[in-house]
């Protein structure tokens, strides 16, 4: 019987194992040192905030794995030997494999800051990070978070939920403005301040200072300001967690290099999820995508391949979502922070300053390219079809009500949006009639 070994029990590895099991009886082993059972790391913040217990983050009950004959090993892998088809584990035991899948995810970026390994300094990625935060939070008066992205703002929200003062250092001159255009980015800036978070734009970390016991006691910024704090959150992005593969002979870039079938340079070894790096980005996507659903899709696709139905990883149209404190964000298709030369953008913001949409379309052809939506939920199905059919922006504006996914009775803003669009881009009326 074929022996498939998966390193990592996150969304990619778990999805892969489940889908293989549906179609095959091969032996499946999942190895993870992080947690005994699969959990949703996107929910760690809610455990800290008291919305959920840790067990609620586990999508499958604990007996699920045994029932489905998926073997779990709660250890870490220290080395991979492709020729011998074997793995060395942290306790010096070895495991043989016929097929190996690397699904080890990411680790938080550290940029050789002085003091980055002190007590009280942490990323927000793993269960262990959460355990640390739980331990330190009760004695923390102020925390400093470095890195203005999705994880940074989640960590800020978590700490504020326990009335810990938060200083938020953002390198850019506005929050996440590498991805968000100015209007949306400014809106989130304001919302961050509304939650009493001390937002410092254009500010970098220089060093983390230690007390006599090796605990973080303050940070120094590039403006030479020293801020006393007990927790330092490092949330300046993530990179593939692949250090253990350095001597394996598997081709590495920033991540594990794979083709569209998720195969590495070595036969029968595959990589999926955050740690996989496509030779070339698919469409406008980046070669490495640390996104929940891409991990899931890679698991689904590879499961097909491993059960005799070779399937390319083919992620379809880009979409994503996030929540910035109380403001929900969804995006479908591509909207660039700095518009490309072929791109025209339409931006509407509600007077409350908490809802906005931005639609990107092609200047000449008026083909719809993408939408950012804040505080208004939109239908994935609708925009996926629009993008596939190359519909125009005018069609989208006209059918905006159909796209809406807000709960019943919510105030509709389509009219206001349509009117503004007509004033700004007069071509609309002609096409409509």
């Amino acid at each position: 019987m074929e022996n498939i070994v998966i390193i990592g029990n996150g969304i990619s590895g778990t999805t892969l194992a489940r889908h293989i099991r549906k179609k095959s009886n091969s032996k499946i082993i999942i190895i993870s040192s992080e947690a005994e059972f699969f959990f949703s790391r996107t929910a760690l913040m809610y455990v800290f905030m008291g919305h959920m217990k840790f067990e609620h983050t586990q999508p499958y009950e604990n007996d699920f794995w045994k029932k489905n004959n998926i073997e779990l090993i709660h250890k870490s892998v220290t080395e991979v030997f492709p020729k011998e088809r074997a793995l060395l584990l942290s306790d010096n035991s070895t495991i043989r494999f016929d097929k190996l899948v690397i699904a080890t995810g990411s680790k938080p970026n550290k940029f050789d800051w002085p003091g980055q390994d002190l007590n009280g300094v942490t990323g927000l990625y793993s269960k262990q990070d959460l355990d640390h935060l739980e331990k330190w939070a009760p004695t923390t008066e102020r925390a400093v978070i470095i890195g203005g992205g999705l994880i940074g703002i989640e960590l800020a929200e978590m700490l504020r939920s326990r009335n810990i003062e938060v200083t938020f250092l953002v390198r850019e001159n506005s929050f996440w403005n590498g991805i968000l255009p100015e209007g949306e980015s400014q809106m989130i800036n304001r919302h961050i301040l509304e939650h009493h978070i001390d937002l410092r734009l254009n500010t970098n970390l220089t060093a983390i200072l230690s007390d006599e016991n090796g605990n973080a006691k303050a940070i120094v910024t590039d403006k030479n300001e020293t801020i006393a704090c007990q927790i330092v959150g490092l949330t300046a992005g993530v990179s593939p967690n692949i250090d253990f593969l350095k001597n394996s002979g598997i081709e590495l870039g920033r991540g594990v290099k794979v083709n569209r079938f998720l195969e590495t340079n070595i036969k029968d070894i595959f990589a999926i999820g955050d740690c996989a790096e496509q030779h070339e980005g698919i469409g406008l996507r980046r070669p490495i995508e640390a996104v929940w659903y891409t991990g899931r899709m890679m698991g689904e696709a590879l499961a097909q391949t491993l059960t005799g139905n070779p399937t390319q990883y083919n992620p379809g149209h880009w979409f994503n979502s996030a929540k910035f404190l109380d403001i929900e964000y969804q995006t479908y298709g591509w909207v660039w922070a700095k518009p490309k030369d072929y791109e025209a953008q339409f931006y509407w913001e509600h007077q409350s300053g908490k809802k906005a949409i931005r639609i990107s379309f092609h200047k000449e052809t008026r083909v719809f390219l993408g939408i950012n939506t804040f505080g208004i939920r939109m239908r994935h199905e609708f925009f996926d079809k629009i993008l596939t059919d190359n519909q125009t922006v005018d069609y989208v504006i006209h059918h905006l009500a159909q796209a809406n996914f807000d709960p019943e009775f919510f105030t509709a803003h389509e009219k206001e949006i349509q009117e503004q669009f007509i004033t700004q881009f007069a071509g609309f009326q002609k096409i409509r009639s």
Partner: protein
Amino acid sequence: MSKSIKNISIASHQNNGLSSVQKLGLALGFIGLFILLLALFNVAFPNKTLWLSISIVAILGGIVFYANATYLNRPEGISNNGLFHQSLTNRGTIAWVIGIVLTLFYVVLYWFPKYLGLGEDGATNSGIIAFFDPLSLLLNGKPASQWFVYGTLYTMAILGLGYKFILKYRHNKYQLVRTISVMFFQLGFAFLIPEILEKLNPDKAYFAKDLKNMWPLNYYFFNEWHLKNMLEGGNLGMFMLVFGIAMIFIISPILTYFYGKRWYCSWVCGCGGLAETAGDSFRHLSNSTQKVWKLERWMIHSVLVFSFVMTIAVLFTFLSNNPEMSFITKDQFIYGIVAFLIVFTGVLYVFKRNDLDADAKFTMLSLVSIIVISILINFFSGNQNILFIDSNSLREWYGFAIGAAFSGFIGVGFYPLLGNRVWCRFGCPMAAILGLQQRLFSKFRITTNGGQCISCGNCTTHCEMGIDVRSYAQKGENIVRSSCVGCGICSAVCPRGVLKLENDTPAGRINSNEILLGNDVNLMELLNNKK
């Protein structure tokens, strides 16, 4: 990980407790409750009207102050911080104390009302029941009963804590409208209108005047005394009888077809009303494991069979004893029921058998067993004895076990321990019936928004019916479950905008095929198949 967060630091600002307005609210509310407590212990208040008013205003005012201070000083949004850190909402000491006090209250209310001060055999009331006499005299012209006191407190809980709920979810208009509806139906239809109707018809014997409380939730609707009182109750009585039956066979099926069972369970029903308002702080305690789902299926369907058989038995006895009051004989009645149920289950089986999930299968089996028992009743029963059991004692047992013990002291008393929908989930026969229709014959579903789910589990955690919402959402499947009461909280707490309660065409509503969400163009194929 530790269950509760203990603050061991003097420097930290964590858990720094209550604001002064919150403290004021608590003080006011508990002064109001304390007045009630004094009344319970027979303190003779000089001016009952004044003190009762003070007590009610203090309780409601206290809740308003507390809720304002809790929710209005933060930006609009989900405010579940600390739910699993606090004693009240995480089965800590406070939760147990409240659970025990509530349970004891129900025990006394149902079986020992004299300890609340109910005057027996025409004696005047004392204690807390006498304390409510002025309000009762004002509304229905009679001295208070234990049920009047209970009804008043129940209504206050829904109004006061409904206000709190509205502030908590003030960013969500669905919650706003739904909660106003629940408050309206409780205050008007369950409390004021029945009391006033009673005052306007002083000479008529009692029958349930709560228009919205329908059989089988109102389990005594077809009991002999209730039927007789309606039949002899003049125009109003006749209206209640016809309206009650129309609710069961016409109004309810139509509304459930268009809106799902939520029109009743989380918009109108009194049990649901209390669960959604007073019980909101405990919704995350509902167990969502597979094991409990299995238990739920067994329990709710056992109650369903019990309630049907009890009702059929009681009607059978009624028809045997009072042939002159009815236009049908007991034989016609039994075979009518049997024929109706056979046609009903037969049609469902023929046309809907592919949509049956485990819940619906159980409901179908329950209906079949009711058919069998009904036939047995007719062959093996005398006028009074139904299958060798006295139909009166069957009725009494139902009233005791289901009407009082289950819906009252387990259903509400255990809110802080088992969650706020224990009764609705495990015991309500009406929920079972509406659930079958919701699953098989309704436009209602919770739509999953493509591939946006991140499996975080907020939906499952906060589902008061213990539905594992995530297990559907993460596969891109719609949620079409018998037990869903459509409260809309899963949609509210979802951080990625994945869930939406909708009424849409029944076709393609149940999409049980697993989807490669977004990967390949399978999504598009699937969409095309659905249309």
